[in-house]
């Protein structure tokens, strides 16, 4: 397959992508590889469909009857390689695994673990009775790194399965003709120039140029999104290879009929192959969110290293031994780096919640290009209107037929429903009797399914009807006295009308005069203008004399009349818009996001749907509308007058990028119709993700302060250590995890869509306001809560706060076993260590308690929690989960040995409650001021 050369005349519909590129990475670099990708993105360049069969055969040195010779086929196979999609170049699994295990900041944790083992080793060498703390911590750290490494490796492995799903699209067997012989070969062995035969049910083994076809229809939906099976014939019907009828595509399905074709492309050179390559090529690119997260992690790692090193130096200056200093260093690194582990996990979780591709352009979206089918519409054809008895009726699609109805006793309706039910190959799949009709699965194409459902709803079982009226297309009639055969036919209305001489009105056949034709035209246009797919129906009772019972009908050699039939009516179907779409489009609009619809549908249909969902809003006209209204040729309309614009895919091809820019600038409402998949983009709903990620980060960062301040005071004020490294790990990897992730499920705040799109250069994930809020304000209150519990426990056990300062040297001396407390009591080393570890546990529990409040305030950035509500079930679960986990860690027997966490007296749980409450009140007041005084000082300084 040839590719358009160079990038000079290249264009892309991916306008928002272009914009992003311009903003985010204005410096284009190493343009070569990119150009490759651009080439792929371009329209398929195929010329075979325009050639005659002979020319194609000549081009591929093949015979259109005999096919290739075996030797020739072997030769080509050796030259082109197997007919399969090449998997993207893969890094060996163990490299991937090691990258997860040792890459990035896991190396920091490894260093921490190694330092721990080293410290333990030195202690074991110098002391008779080394404490196992460092050994345990080292083991825990190593375990953490290994577990998270395995986890992320597993996730990566999962995502790489996307490509494997493409592999599965390759057909297994193919029927080829070589040296005049039909033979089954492995699809991988099919080569360019092979003659291939396909029949209904087959997967197309390669891109084929059809040379003969019998009623062949293919389902191109995996390629174009077009749900309707398309006819295939040897004639070239369109310049665009994707539109023309004489090409079938690799890995699409043949629905019915048979066809024979010459293979024109195999493997990666097929259209599908190019898309697969494109899809796997795109994975390489980092999404804005990934960049943000990377930035965030760099920031945190920077902070961790800075804090760790400065604490190290500080503790050396303060006269600690280097071993102690190393242990402090480990503590700081663990506190910070584990935090980023949570954040990373959470970010990944976030990306899993919505799918990864959807995050592509994120909150910085300024333009949304949406596919129609399945995104804006439900991809479920439904009969919407009917026209019979010269009247348009609205179809009743309610399950119990309670909606607005029409006169079902009309003979015309009976005839129409008969035709729709009989001239229809769609059947319900088995075992669905209890499922509502509208929700049942149907085997058959979209419009026939729609008809089937409609008739099933309004006239009862179609199956019974078919049983009573045997045979397809020509039926024996129900009435035993009537021996006439019934011929039924449906199809494009104008074609059907051409075959009709009469029309059924109120059950009586009447001649089809000009007046009726006019009425038909109006109805057709009206229904078509609604964006509906219109089908015409006619029938004919074959005269008994000519076609007696038992007459042998022959469809191939038509031996019965197909003209002068009786027109019965029209039925029109629509793919209804999703209920939430108009609202969503409206919200995007108010957020200043331009919404563009890109579809493979006919422009009229496209326009109607666009109007239906509000992409073209009420009162806005396209150039064509204006022309029609003013009754002037389209060329005379000033394009600036038209706010809306429908662009045909074929026109788009001929536009230069300047022209496209102009269109995008001049029209606020744009619909691209009849576009190919390469021109389609994905709808993006990234703001919520970005918002929630911010909240998650604010939540996790906050607990960093109560984790670090204990170390700070321990070193500076020489108090017993208030919070140990193990407990820090418990917070970062245990209790904070689920709540942080639960914020990803938080519903959007009411103002989310009223905000301007995010500017990726200035609005970042982590900004100084977030840091100031999390570290400077909420975190400080949290630390106070933790310290208060710490002081309470020590005081209640005899060590009043006043005595604590400077006590550390004796406190941590193993040989001092009569340390005096404020009451004159004397403590052994182990006794006071138990109290210290109880303090760690209490500090830990306090952090959990203050994190409750933090979680609730992080739910919203502007609204009050009373406005937002507590509807996030996962968040509520998270609250209970962290509390239960904290209680478990404190009370589970054996924890005193395993993690050195001790059971707390119930009253100690309440120490941090006032601080939790304080956080809540403080932030509610802040948000109140924020809302009352938009743009004010509080917003500028604290709105993150």
């Amino acid at each position: 397959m040839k590719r358009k050369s160079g990038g000079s005349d290249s264009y892309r519909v991916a306008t928002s992508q272009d914009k992003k590129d311009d903003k985010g990475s204005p410096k284009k670099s190493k343009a070569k590889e990119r150009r490759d990708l651009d080439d792929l993105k371009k329209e398929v360049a195929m010329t075979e469909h325009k050639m005659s069969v002979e020319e194609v055969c000549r081009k591929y040195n093949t015979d259109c009857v005999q096919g290739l010779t075996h030797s020739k086929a072997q030769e080509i196979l050796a030259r082109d390689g197997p007919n399969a999609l090449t998997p993207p170049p893969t890094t060996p699994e163990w490299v991937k695994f090691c990258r997860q295990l040792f890459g990035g900041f896991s190396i920091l944790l490894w260093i921490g673990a190694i330092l721990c083992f080293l410290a333990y080793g030195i202690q074991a060498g110098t002391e008779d009775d080394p404490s196992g703390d460092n050994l345990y911590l080292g083991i825990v750290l190593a375990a953490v790194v290994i577990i998270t490494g395995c986890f992320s490796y597993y996730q990566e492995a999962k995502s790489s399965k996307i490509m494997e799903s493409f592999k599965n699209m390759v057909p297994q067997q193919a029927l080829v003709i070589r040296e005049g012989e039909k033979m089954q070969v492995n699809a991988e062995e099919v080569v360019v120039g092979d003659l291939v035969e396909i029949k209904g049910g087959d997967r197309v083994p390669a891109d084929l140029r059809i040379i003969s076809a019998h009623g062949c229809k293919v389902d191109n939906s995996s390629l174009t999104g077009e749900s309707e099976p398309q006819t295939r014939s040897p004639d070239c019907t369109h310049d665009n290879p994707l539109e023309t009828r004489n090409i079938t595509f690799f890995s699409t399905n043949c629905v019915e009929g048979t066809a024979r074709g010459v293979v024109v492309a195999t493997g990666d050179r097929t259209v599908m192959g190019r898309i697969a390559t494109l899809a796997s090529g795109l994975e390489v690119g980092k999404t804005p969110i990934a960049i943000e997260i990377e930035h965030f992690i760099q920031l945190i790692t920077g902070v961790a290293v800075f804090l760790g090193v400065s604490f190290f130096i500080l503790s050396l200056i303060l006269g600690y031994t280097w071993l102690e200093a190393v242990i402090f260093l480990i503590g700081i690194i663990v506190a910070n780096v584990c935090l980023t582990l949570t954040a990373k996990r959470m970010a990944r979780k976030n990306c899993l919640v919505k799918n990864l591709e959807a995050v592509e352009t994120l909150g910085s979206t300024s333009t949304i290009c949406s596919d129609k089918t399945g995104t804006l519409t439900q991809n479920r054809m439904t009969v919407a209107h009917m026209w019979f008895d010269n009247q348009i009726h609205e179809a009743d699609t309610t399950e119990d037929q309670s909606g607005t109805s029409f006169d079902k006793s009309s003979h015309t309706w009976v005839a129409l429903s008969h035709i729709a039910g009989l001239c229809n190959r769609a059947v319900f799949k088995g075992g669905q009797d209890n499922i509502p009709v509208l929700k049942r699965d149907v085997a058959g194409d979209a419009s026939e399914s729609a008809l089937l459902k409609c008739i099933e709803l309004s006239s009862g079982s179609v199956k019974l009807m078919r049983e009573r009226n045997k045979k397809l297309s020509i039926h024996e009639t129900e009435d035993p006295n009537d021996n006439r055969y019934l011929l039924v036919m449906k199809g494009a209305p104008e074609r059907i009308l051409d075959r009709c001489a009469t029309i059924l009105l109120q059950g009586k056949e009447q001649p089809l005069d000009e007046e009726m034709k006019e009425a038909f035209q109006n109805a057709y246009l009206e229904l078509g203008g609604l964006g509906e797919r219109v089908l015409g129906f006619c029938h004919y009772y074959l005269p008994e004399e000519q076609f007696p019972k038992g007459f042998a009908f022959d469809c191939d050699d038509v031996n019965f009349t197909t003209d002068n039939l009786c027109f019965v009516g029209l039925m029109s179907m629509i793919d209804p818009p999703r209920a939430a779409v108009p609202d969503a489009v409206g919200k995007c609009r108010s957020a200043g996001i331009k919404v563009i619809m890109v579809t493979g549908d006919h422009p009229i249909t496209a326009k109607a749907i666009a109007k239906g969902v509000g992409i073209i809003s009420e009162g806005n006209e396209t150039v064509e509308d204006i022309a029609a209204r003013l009754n002037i040729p389209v060329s005379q309309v000033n394009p600036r007058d038209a706010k809306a614009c429908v662009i045909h895919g074929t026109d788009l091809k001929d536009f230069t990028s300047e022209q496209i820019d102009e269109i995008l600038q001049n029209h606020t409402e744009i619909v691209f119709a009849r576009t190919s998949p390469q021109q389609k983009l994905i709808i993006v709903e990234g703001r919520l993700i970005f918002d929630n990620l911010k909240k998650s980060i604010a939540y996790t960062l906050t607990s960093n302060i109560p984790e670090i301040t204990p170390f700070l005071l321990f070193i500076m004020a020489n108090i017993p250590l208030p919070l140990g490294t193990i407990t820090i790990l418990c917070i970062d990897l245990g209790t904070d995890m689920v709540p942080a992730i639960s914020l990803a499920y938080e519903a959007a705040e009411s103002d989310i869509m009223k905000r301007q799109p995010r500017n990726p250069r200035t609005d970042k994930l982590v900004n100084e306001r977030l840091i100031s809020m999390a570290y400077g304000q909420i975190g400080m209150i949290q630390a106070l809560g933790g310290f208060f519990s710490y002081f309470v426990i020590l005081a209640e056990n005899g060590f009043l706060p006043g005595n604590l300062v400077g006590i550390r040297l004796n406190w941590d001396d193993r040989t001092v076993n009569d340390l005096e407390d404020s009451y004159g009591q004397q403590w052994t080393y182990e006794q006071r260590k138990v109290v210290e570890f109880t303090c760690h546990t209490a500090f830990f529990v306090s952090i959990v308690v203050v994190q409750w409040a933090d979680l609730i305030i992080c739910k919203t950035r502007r609204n009050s929690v009373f406005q937002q509500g507590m509807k996030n079930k996962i968040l509520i679960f998270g609250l209970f989960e962290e509390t239960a986990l904290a209680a478990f860690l404190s009370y589970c027997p054996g924890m005193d040995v395993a993690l050195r966490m001790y059971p707390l007296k119930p009253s100690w749980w309440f120490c941090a409650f006032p601080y939790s409450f304080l956080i809540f009140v403080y932030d509610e007041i802040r948000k109140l001021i924020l809302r009352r005084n938009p743009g004010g000082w509080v917003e500028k300084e604290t709105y993150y």
Partner: protein
Amino acid sequence: DDQDEVNQNYLADEEEDAEQEAQMMMVPGLEEEEEEEEGKEEEEEREEEGQGQPTGNAWRQKLQIVTEYLWDPEKRMSLARTGQSRSLILVIYFFFYASLAAVITLFLYMLFLAISPYMPTFTEQVKPPGVMIRPFAHSLNFNFNVSEPETWQHYVVSLNGFLQGYNDSLQEEMNVDCPPGQYFIQDGDEDEDKKACQFKRSFLKNCSGLEDPTFGYSTGQPCILLKMNRIVGFRPELGDPVKVSCKVQKGDEYDIRSISYYPESASFDLRYYPYYGKLTHVNYTSPLVAMHFTDVVKNQAVPVQCQLKGKGIINDVINDRFVGRIIFTLNIET
């Protein structure tokens, strides 16, 4: 690869802004490094774009951006803030932290109101009592050579210092002589000052340092004083004072052939209990038991375990070797 490059460039742009946030947290060195990187990237970018600008320009621009960030004369801003907004935020933070300090002070004050200064709220962690010995020099190994006084002189000094508070004259002056064999219970208000029982240095006889100022170290018969940790409200079982007994911890039990205990009962008399706490029981003197190792195998390390015995005393906790017992080694060289 290509995409990464783009992202890095993108990141580089961000770093300018990121620096503002990170200013307070980054090591200056780190920052400079990053700037360098940025600079390099910028150069590459420019080369790739092929705009043909001299690379020095990029450096100058970077420098300008940084200096402008540090001090922007036009907007009169330094570190992206005007003096006014900076002082405002400082004032706000000052008040914020001041009120937080007030809050914690208030809570601690309430804590002091809530707990009694005379009696600890909980004492279960400090029970059962631990044991400590004197002389104590951050080590539980007693290594000395009888013939070299400098090897044991510090023990003597330590013991002398420790026993200053037990001098008979001082005890007689400060404390009362209360009847032995029964608790010295002083009812009355919590905040009333309590009297303390005398424990005279002379009770320790040969280990008092009065007759033998070297506490037996000069003869290879060292004295070691044992005291039980004070616990507010702790009372041994009535009529059953806590006794002390020492033996070889592991090895030949005849390595210690004889020990003399002073007082001879080798126990802590009941009259020294209960303890009422530092605040009211000001002159409380911890009772002692002196162990006089009169005949111990010389020139070899002898591990000694001294245990408290009595009801309510636990002396076999595995992970705390100072509760109800103490283990030390004697290595007396001649």
